[in-house]
Protein backbone atom coordinates (compact mmCIF):
# COMPACT_ATOMS: atom_id res chain seq x y z
CA UNK A 1 0.00 0.00 0.00
CA UNK A 2 1.12 3.58 -0.64
CA UNK A 3 1.86 6.05 2.11
CA UNK A 4 1.17 9.74 2.32
CA UNK A 5 3.12 12.23 4.41
CA UNK A 6 1.43 15.42 5.56
CA UNK A 7 2.64 17.87 8.22
CA UNK A 8 5.50 15.53 9.10
CA UNK A 9 3.20 12.56 9.84
CA UNK A 10 2.97 9.50 7.63
CA UNK A 11 -0.28 7.61 7.03
CA UNK A 12 -0.95 4.27 5.30
CA UNK A 13 -3.62 4.35 2.64
CA UNK A 14 -6.19 1.57 2.69
CA UNK A 15 -6.97 -0.20 -0.54
CA UNK A 16 -8.95 2.02 -2.90
CA UNK A 17 -8.88 4.91 -0.46
CA UNK A 18 -8.51 8.53 -1.57
CA UNK A 19 -6.00 10.90 0.01
CA UNK A 20 -8.89 12.91 1.46
CA UNK A 21 -10.55 9.83 2.99
CA UNK A 22 -7.27 8.75 4.51
CA UNK A 23 -6.58 12.17 6.05
CA UNK A 24 -10.12 12.43 7.44
CA UNK A 25 -9.96 8.86 8.81
CA UNK A 26 -6.89 9.93 10.77
CA UNK A 27 -8.65 13.00 12.13
CA UNK A 28 -6.67 15.52 10.06
CA UNK A 29 -8.55 18.80 9.69
CA UNK A 30 -8.41 19.56 5.98
CA UNK A 31 -10.84 21.48 3.75
CA UNK A 32 -13.25 19.70 1.38
CA UNK A 33 -16.78 20.03 0.08
CA UNK A 34 -18.13 18.10 -2.93
CA UNK A 35 -15.90 15.02 -2.51
CA UNK A 36 -16.22 14.34 -6.20
CA UNK A 37 -13.54 16.40 -7.91
CA UNK A 38 -15.44 19.47 -8.99
CA UNK A 39 -15.32 22.20 -6.33
CA UNK A 40 -11.52 22.24 -5.85
CA UNK A 41 -11.84 22.94 -2.10
CA UNK A 42 -9.55 20.01 -1.32
CA UNK A 43 -6.67 21.06 -3.59
CA UNK A 44 -3.21 20.04 -2.36
CA UNK A 45 0.29 19.97 -3.76
CA UNK A 46 2.60 16.96 -3.90
CA UNK A 47 6.02 18.14 -2.77
CA UNK A 48 7.51 14.68 -3.27
CA UNK A 49 6.21 12.04 -5.65
CA UNK A 50 3.85 12.55 -8.58
CA UNK A 51 0.07 12.49 -8.21
CA UNK A 52 -1.93 10.37 -10.67
CA UNK A 53 -3.00 12.40 -13.69
CA UNK A 54 -6.72 11.65 -13.06
CA UNK A 55 -6.45 13.52 -9.76
CA UNK A 56 -5.50 16.71 -11.64
CA UNK A 57 -8.63 16.90 -13.79
CA UNK A 58 -9.95 20.42 -14.20
CA UNK A 59 -7.03 22.13 -12.49
CA UNK A 60 -5.27 25.01 -14.23
CA UNK A 61 -2.42 23.68 -16.39
CA UNK A 62 0.19 25.86 -14.64
CA UNK A 63 -0.88 24.26 -11.33
CA UNK A 64 -0.90 20.76 -12.81
CA UNK A 65 2.68 21.32 -13.85
CA UNK A 66 3.56 22.01 -10.21
CA UNK A 67 1.92 18.77 -9.03
CA UNK A 68 -1.25 20.22 -7.58
CA UNK A 69 -4.12 17.71 -7.37
CA UNK A 70 -7.55 17.13 -5.83
CA UNK A 71 -7.32 15.02 -2.68
CA UNK A 72 -10.88 13.70 -2.94
CA UNK A 73 -10.26 11.92 -6.24
CA UNK A 74 -6.64 11.00 -5.67
CA UNK A 75 -5.82 7.32 -5.24
CA UNK A 76 -2.02 7.33 -5.32
CA UNK A 77 -0.13 4.44 -6.82
CA UNK A 78 3.10 5.52 -5.13
CA UNK A 79 4.10 7.40 -1.98
CA UNK A 80 3.39 11.14 -1.82
CA UNK A 81 4.39 14.02 0.46
CA UNK A 82 1.73 16.68 0.56
CA UNK A 83 1.04 20.23 1.60
CA UNK A 84 -2.21 22.18 1.58
CA UNK A 85 -2.70 24.57 -1.35
CA UNK A 86 -2.25 28.14 -0.22
CA UNK A 87 0.02 27.08 2.62
CA UNK A 88 3.13 25.97 0.79
CA UNK A 89 6.42 26.84 2.40
CA UNK A 90 9.29 25.73 0.23
CA UNK A 91 12.84 25.36 1.53
CA UNK A 92 14.60 28.64 2.32
CA UNK A 93 18.06 29.38 1.07
CA UNK A 94 20.58 32.21 0.88
CA UNK A 95 21.19 34.27 -2.23
CA UNK A 96 23.92 36.83 -2.94
CA UNK A 97 23.08 40.24 -4.36
CA UNK A 98 25.21 40.36 -7.51
CA UNK A 99 23.84 43.52 -9.10
CA UNK A 100 21.77 46.54 -8.16
CA UNK A 101 20.93 48.95 -10.98
CA UNK A 102 18.25 51.65 -11.05
CA UNK A 103 15.94 51.24 -14.07
CA UNK A 104 14.22 54.54 -13.26
CA UNK A 105 14.00 56.90 -10.30
CA UNK A 106 11.45 54.57 -8.68
CA UNK A 107 12.40 51.09 -9.90
CA UNK A 108 15.50 49.15 -8.81
CA UNK A 109 16.70 46.08 -10.64
CA UNK A 110 18.11 43.48 -8.27
CA UNK A 111 19.96 40.42 -9.45
CA UNK A 112 20.47 37.53 -7.06
CA UNK A 113 22.58 34.39 -7.27
CA UNK A 114 20.95 31.64 -5.17
CA UNK A 115 23.36 29.30 -3.37
CA UNK A 116 21.58 26.22 -4.65
CA UNK A 117 19.77 25.90 -7.91
CA UNK A 118 16.20 27.15 -7.66
CA UNK A 119 13.44 25.74 -9.80
CA UNK A 120 11.22 28.53 -11.16
CA UNK A 121 9.40 29.86 -14.19
CA UNK A 122 9.69 33.52 -15.24
CA UNK A 123 6.58 35.25 -13.89
CA UNK A 124 6.45 33.28 -10.65
CA UNK A 125 7.47 35.04 -7.44
CA UNK A 126 9.80 34.45 -4.54
CA UNK A 127 9.60 35.64 -0.96
CA UNK A 128 12.44 37.76 0.40
CA UNK A 129 13.08 37.45 4.13
CA UNK A 130 14.98 40.17 5.91
CA UNK A 131 16.91 39.12 9.04
CA UNK A 132 14.35 40.75 11.32
CA UNK A 133 11.61 38.55 9.82
CA UNK A 134 10.06 41.09 7.43
CA UNK A 135 8.88 39.13 4.37
CA UNK A 136 7.71 40.41 0.97
CA UNK A 137 6.99 38.80 -2.39
CA UNK A 138 8.73 39.84 -5.62
CA UNK A 139 8.17 38.52 -9.12
CA UNK A 140 10.84 36.98 -11.28
CA UNK A 141 11.79 38.84 -14.46
CA UNK A 142 14.69 36.63 -15.54
CA UNK A 143 14.77 33.57 -17.75
CA UNK A 144 15.79 30.16 -16.43
CA UNK A 145 18.78 30.28 -18.78
CA UNK A 146 20.15 33.59 -17.49
CA UNK A 147 21.77 32.14 -14.39
CA UNK A 148 20.44 34.72 -11.92
CA UNK A 149 17.16 35.83 -10.42
CA UNK A 150 16.13 39.29 -11.55
CA UNK A 151 13.63 41.32 -9.52
CA UNK A 152 12.25 44.82 -10.15
CA UNK A 153 11.53 46.67 -6.93
CA UNK A 154 9.31 49.69 -6.89
CA UNK A 155 10.07 52.25 -4.19
CA UNK A 156 6.95 52.61 -2.04
CA UNK A 157 6.69 55.69 0.14
CA UNK A 158 7.42 54.59 3.72
CA UNK A 159 7.69 51.05 2.40
CA UNK A 160 9.78 49.02 4.80
CA UNK A 161 11.17 46.37 2.47
CA UNK A 162 11.28 48.40 -0.73
CA UNK A 163 13.09 51.40 0.78
CA UNK A 164 15.51 49.10 2.58
CA UNK A 165 16.29 47.40 -0.74
CA UNK A 166 16.64 50.72 -2.56
CA UNK A 167 18.68 52.51 0.09
CA UNK A 168 20.51 49.98 2.26
CA UNK A 169 20.91 46.54 0.74
CA UNK A 170 24.42 46.27 -0.68
CA UNK A 171 25.85 44.38 -3.61
CA UNK A 172 27.75 41.38 -2.24
CA UNK A 173 25.49 40.91 0.76
CA UNK A 174 23.35 37.88 1.35
CA UNK A 175 19.56 37.61 1.69
CA UNK A 176 17.17 34.74 2.49
CA UNK A 177 14.83 33.69 -0.29
CA UNK A 178 12.01 31.15 -0.49
CA UNK A 179 10.06 29.96 -3.54
CA UNK A 180 9.20 29.91 -6.33
CA UNK A 181 5.43 30.26 -6.07
CA UNK A 182 2.56 31.24 -8.31
CA UNK A 183 0.69 29.99 -11.35
CA UNK A 184 1.16 32.97 -13.63
CA UNK A 185 3.77 31.91 -16.15
CA UNK A 186 4.10 30.84 -19.78
CA UNK A 187 3.42 27.21 -20.68
CA UNK A 188 4.32 26.07 -24.18
CA UNK A 189 2.08 24.01 -26.41
CA UNK A 190 -0.13 26.61 -28.07
CA UNK A 191 2.40 28.74 -29.97
CA UNK A 192 -0.17 30.51 -32.20
CA UNK A 193 -2.38 31.76 -29.39
CA UNK A 194 -2.45 35.57 -29.10
CA UNK A 195 -1.15 36.79 -25.73
CA UNK A 196 -2.26 39.92 -23.90
CA UNK A 197 0.07 41.12 -21.14
CA UNK A 198 -1.10 43.98 -18.93
CA UNK A 199 0.94 45.37 -16.04
CA UNK A 200 1.13 48.46 -13.88
CA UNK A 201 4.30 49.76 -12.20
CA UNK A 202 6.65 46.96 -11.21
CA UNK A 203 3.99 44.56 -12.53
CA UNK A 204 6.11 44.77 -15.65
CA UNK A 205 8.67 42.55 -13.95
CA UNK A 206 6.87 39.21 -14.39
CA UNK A 207 5.63 40.29 -17.83
CA UNK A 208 9.17 40.99 -19.01
CA UNK A 209 10.02 37.42 -17.97
CA UNK A 210 6.86 35.90 -19.45
CA UNK A 211 7.15 37.66 -22.83
CA UNK A 212 10.78 36.66 -23.26
CA UNK A 213 10.09 33.08 -22.09
CA UNK A 214 7.33 32.81 -24.70
CA UNK A 215 9.69 34.05 -27.44
CA UNK A 216 12.43 31.72 -26.23
CA UNK A 217 10.01 28.81 -26.56
CA UNK A 218 9.10 29.83 -30.10
CA UNK A 219 5.79 31.54 -29.52
CA UNK A 220 4.60 32.69 -32.94
CA UNK A 221 1.24 34.30 -32.10
CA UNK A 222 0.96 37.99 -31.33
CA UNK A 223 2.25 39.20 -27.96
CA UNK A 224 0.71 42.51 -26.89
CA UNK A 225 2.35 44.21 -23.93
CA UNK A 226 0.56 47.11 -22.22
CA UNK A 227 2.48 48.73 -19.42
CA UNK A 228 0.96 51.59 -17.47
CA UNK A 229 1.53 53.90 -14.60
CA UNK A 230 0.34 57.13 -13.13
CA UNK A 231 3.88 58.48 -12.89
CA UNK A 232 6.46 58.72 -15.69
CA UNK A 233 9.16 57.45 -13.26
CA UNK A 234 7.42 54.11 -13.10
CA UNK A 235 7.49 53.54 -16.84
CA UNK A 236 10.75 51.70 -17.33
CA UNK A 237 12.50 49.32 -19.75
CA UNK A 238 10.91 51.39 -22.51
CA UNK A 239 13.94 51.22 -24.78
CA UNK A 240 14.38 47.45 -24.19
CA UNK A 241 10.71 46.80 -24.92
CA UNK A 242 10.79 48.88 -28.10
CA UNK A 243 13.82 46.91 -29.21
CA UNK A 244 12.04 43.65 -28.43
CA UNK A 245 9.14 44.77 -30.62
CA UNK A 246 11.52 45.74 -33.42
CA UNK A 247 13.33 42.43 -33.26
CA UNK A 248 10.20 40.26 -33.10
CA UNK A 249 7.45 41.12 -35.57
CA UNK A 250 4.80 39.51 -33.35
CA UNK A 251 5.52 41.74 -30.33
CA UNK A 252 3.58 45.00 -29.81
CA UNK A 253 4.43 47.32 -26.95
CA UNK A 254 2.19 50.10 -25.69
CA UNK A 255 3.40 52.21 -22.76
CA UNK A 256 0.53 54.08 -21.10
CA UNK A 257 0.38 57.03 -18.75
CA UNK A 258 -2.99 57.37 -17.03
CA UNK A 259 -2.82 61.16 -17.15
CA UNK A 260 -0.46 63.87 -18.38
CA UNK A 261 1.62 63.72 -21.49
CA UNK A 262 4.82 62.04 -22.63
CA UNK A 263 6.33 61.58 -26.06
CA UNK A 264 5.60 58.19 -27.62
CA UNK A 265 3.35 57.20 -24.72
CA UNK A 266 -0.37 56.52 -24.92
CA UNK A 267 -2.52 58.59 -22.56
CA UNK A 268 -4.98 56.37 -20.68
CA UNK A 269 -4.91 53.46 -18.31
CA UNK A 270 -3.14 50.34 -19.51
CA UNK A 271 -6.05 47.98 -18.91
CA UNK A 272 -8.66 50.31 -20.43
CA UNK A 273 -6.47 50.85 -23.47
CA UNK A 274 -5.80 47.14 -23.95
CA UNK A 275 -9.45 46.15 -23.58
CA UNK A 276 -10.68 48.84 -25.94
CA UNK A 277 -8.15 47.85 -28.58
CA UNK A 278 -9.03 44.15 -28.15
CA UNK A 279 -12.76 44.00 -27.42
CA UNK A 280 -12.98 40.25 -28.11
CA UNK A 281 -10.56 38.02 -26.21
CA UNK A 282 -12.03 34.71 -27.22
CA UNK A 283 -9.09 32.34 -27.72
CA UNK A 284 -6.54 34.67 -26.06
CA UNK A 285 -4.29 34.02 -23.11
CA UNK A 286 -4.16 36.97 -20.71
CA UNK A 287 -1.55 37.84 -18.07
CA UNK A 288 -2.29 40.52 -15.46
CA UNK A 289 0.20 41.79 -12.90
CA UNK A 290 0.46 44.71 -10.53
CA UNK A 291 -2.09 46.88 -8.78
CA UNK A 292 -4.59 44.52 -7.09
CA UNK A 293 -7.67 46.44 -8.15
CA UNK A 294 -6.52 46.69 -11.76
CA UNK A 295 -5.76 42.96 -11.77
CA UNK A 296 -9.06 41.89 -10.24
CA UNK A 297 -11.21 44.21 -12.35
CA UNK A 298 -9.43 43.27 -15.54
CA UNK A 299 -9.66 39.56 -14.77
CA UNK A 300 -13.40 39.89 -14.72
CA UNK A 301 -13.51 42.07 -17.83
CA UNK A 302 -11.20 39.76 -19.79
CA UNK A 303 -13.39 36.80 -18.88
CA UNK A 304 -16.54 38.66 -19.95
CA UNK A 305 -14.74 39.62 -23.17
CA UNK A 306 -14.50 35.92 -23.99
CA UNK A 307 -11.18 34.63 -22.63
CA UNK A 308 -11.39 31.14 -21.13
CA UNK A 309 -11.07 31.21 -17.37
CA UNK A 310 -8.09 28.86 -17.45
CA UNK A 311 -6.35 31.23 -19.84
CA UNK A 312 -6.40 34.21 -17.48
CA UNK A 313 -3.28 34.23 -15.35
CA UNK A 314 -3.06 36.91 -12.75
CA UNK A 315 -0.83 38.11 -9.94
CA UNK A 316 -2.31 40.88 -7.85
CA UNK A 317 0.52 42.57 -5.90
CA UNK A 318 -1.51 42.41 -2.71
CA UNK A 319 -0.42 44.90 -0.08
CA UNK A 320 0.81 43.43 3.20
CA UNK A 321 -0.98 44.49 6.32
CA UNK A 322 1.62 43.27 8.83
Amino acid at each position, binding site marked *: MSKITFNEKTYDLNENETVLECLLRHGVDTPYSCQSGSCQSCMMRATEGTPPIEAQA*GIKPTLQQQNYFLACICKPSSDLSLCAAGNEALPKQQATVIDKTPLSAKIMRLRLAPEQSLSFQPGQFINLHRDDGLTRSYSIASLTTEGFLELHIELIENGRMSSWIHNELEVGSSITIEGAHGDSFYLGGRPEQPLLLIGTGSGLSPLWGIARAALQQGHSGEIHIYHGSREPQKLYLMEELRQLATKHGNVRYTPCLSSGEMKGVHVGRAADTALSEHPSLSGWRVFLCGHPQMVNDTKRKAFLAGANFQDILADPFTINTN
Partner: protein
Amino acid sequence: MSQSLYDRIGGDAAVNAAVDLFYRKVLADDRINHFFDGIDMAKQHAKQKAFLTMALGGPNNYTGEDMRKGHAHLVARGLNDSHFDAVMENLGATLTELGVPGDLIAEAAAIAESTRNDVLGK
Protein backbone atom coordinates in the same frame (compact mmCIF):
# COMPACT_ATOMS: atom_id res chain seq x y z
CA MET B 1 -29.72 0.53 -15.70
CA SER B 2 -30.34 3.50 -17.94
CA GLN B 3 -27.53 6.03 -18.39
CA SER B 4 -27.67 9.09 -16.17
CA LEU B 5 -28.45 12.50 -17.63
CA TYR B 6 -24.88 13.48 -16.85
CA ASP B 7 -23.49 10.71 -19.06
CA ARG B 8 -25.98 11.35 -21.85
CA ILE B 9 -25.04 15.04 -21.94
CA GLY B 10 -21.37 14.16 -22.22
CA GLY B 11 -20.04 13.92 -18.66
CA ASP B 12 -17.11 15.90 -17.35
CA ALA B 13 -16.18 17.30 -20.78
CA ALA B 14 -19.69 18.73 -21.24
CA VAL B 15 -19.62 20.27 -17.78
CA ASN B 16 -16.23 21.83 -18.48
CA ALA B 17 -17.58 23.34 -21.70
CA ALA B 18 -20.58 24.70 -19.81
CA VAL B 19 -18.75 26.26 -16.85
CA ASP B 20 -17.26 29.29 -18.62
CA LEU B 21 -20.45 30.00 -20.55
CA PHE B 22 -22.60 29.73 -17.46
CA TYR B 23 -20.30 31.73 -15.18
CA ARG B 24 -20.01 34.49 -17.80
CA LYS B 25 -23.80 34.74 -17.92
CA VAL B 26 -24.06 34.88 -14.13
CA LEU B 27 -21.42 37.62 -13.85
CA ALA B 28 -23.13 39.65 -16.56
CA ASP B 29 -26.58 39.25 -14.98
CA ASP B 30 -27.30 42.29 -12.82
CA ARG B 31 -30.19 40.51 -11.12
CA ILE B 32 -27.84 38.09 -9.36
CA ASN B 33 -24.19 39.05 -9.86
CA HIS B 34 -24.02 40.93 -6.54
CA PHE B 35 -24.22 37.56 -4.77
CA PHE B 36 -20.96 36.62 -6.43
CA ASP B 37 -19.03 39.81 -5.64
CA GLY B 38 -16.10 39.78 -3.31
CA ILE B 39 -15.44 36.06 -3.60
CA ASP B 40 -12.21 34.96 -5.23
CA MET B 41 -12.99 34.31 -8.92
CA ALA B 42 -11.03 31.07 -9.06
CA LYS B 43 -12.94 29.61 -6.10
CA GLN B 44 -16.20 30.85 -7.52
CA HIS B 45 -15.43 29.36 -10.92
CA ALA B 46 -14.77 25.96 -9.33
CA LYS B 47 -18.07 26.21 -7.46
CA GLN B 48 -19.92 26.82 -10.71
CA LYS B 49 -18.58 23.50 -11.79
CA ALA B 50 -19.88 21.91 -8.61
CA PHE B 51 -23.27 23.50 -9.31
CA LEU B 52 -23.42 22.33 -12.93
CA THR B 53 -22.25 18.82 -12.11
CA MET B 54 -25.04 18.60 -9.58
CA ALA B 55 -27.70 20.12 -11.85
CA LEU B 56 -26.78 17.67 -14.59
CA GLY B 57 -27.11 14.73 -12.22
CA GLY B 58 -23.39 14.03 -12.10
CA PRO B 59 -21.41 12.52 -9.24
CA ASN B 60 -21.64 14.58 -6.05
CA ASN B 61 -22.10 14.05 -2.38
CA TYR B 62 -24.10 17.15 -1.58
CA THR B 63 -27.17 16.65 0.58
CA GLY B 64 -30.19 18.92 0.87
CA GLU B 65 -28.77 19.97 4.22
CA ASP B 66 -25.48 20.99 2.53
CA MET B 67 -27.43 23.17 0.08
CA ARG B 68 -29.35 24.77 2.95
CA LYS B 69 -26.17 25.55 4.89
CA GLY B 70 -24.22 26.53 1.77
CA HIS B 71 -26.74 29.18 0.75
CA ALA B 72 -27.92 30.34 4.18
CA HIS B 73 -25.59 33.38 4.12
CA LEU B 74 -27.09 34.34 0.75
CA VAL B 75 -30.66 33.92 2.00
CA ALA B 76 -29.68 36.27 4.83
CA ARG B 77 -28.67 38.74 2.10
CA GLY B 78 -32.05 38.48 0.41
CA LEU B 79 -31.78 35.46 -1.90
CA ASN B 80 -35.30 34.62 -3.07
CA ASP B 81 -37.34 32.90 -5.79
CA SER B 82 -36.67 35.62 -8.36
CA HIS B 83 -32.91 35.00 -8.06
CA PHE B 84 -33.43 31.26 -8.23
CA ASP B 85 -35.45 31.76 -11.43
CA ALA B 86 -32.64 33.86 -12.88
CA VAL B 87 -30.14 31.06 -12.24
CA MET B 88 -32.52 28.58 -13.86
CA GLU B 89 -32.80 30.86 -16.88
CA ASN B 90 -29.01 31.10 -17.22
CA LEU B 91 -28.71 27.35 -16.89
CA GLY B 92 -31.24 26.81 -19.68
CA ALA B 93 -29.59 29.40 -21.93
CA THR B 94 -26.17 27.83 -21.40
CA LEU B 95 -27.34 24.36 -22.33
CA THR B 96 -29.25 25.69 -25.34
CA GLU B 97 -26.12 27.49 -26.53
CA LEU B 98 -24.18 24.23 -26.26
CA GLY B 99 -26.73 22.49 -28.45
CA VAL B 100 -28.09 20.19 -25.75
CA PRO B 101 -31.47 18.76 -26.90
CA GLY B 102 -34.58 20.23 -25.28
CA ASP B 103 -35.69 17.08 -23.48
CA LEU B 104 -32.31 16.80 -21.72
CA ILE B 105 -32.45 20.48 -20.76
CA ALA B 106 -35.85 19.83 -19.21
CA GLU B 107 -34.39 16.97 -17.17
CA ALA B 108 -31.55 19.19 -15.94
CA ALA B 109 -34.02 21.93 -15.06
CA ALA B 110 -36.06 19.45 -13.04
CA ILE B 111 -33.01 18.36 -11.04
CA ALA B 112 -32.02 21.96 -10.29
CA GLU B 113 -35.65 22.84 -9.50
CA SER B 114 -35.77 20.03 -6.92
CA THR B 115 -33.22 21.91 -4.80
CA ARG B 116 -35.27 25.13 -4.66
CA ASN B 117 -36.58 24.79 -1.11
CA ASP B 118 -33.21 23.82 0.28
CA VAL B 119 -31.30 26.56 -1.55
CA LEU B 120 -33.84 29.18 -0.45
CA GLY B 121 -34.01 27.80 3.10
CA LYS B 122 -37.77 27.24 2.98
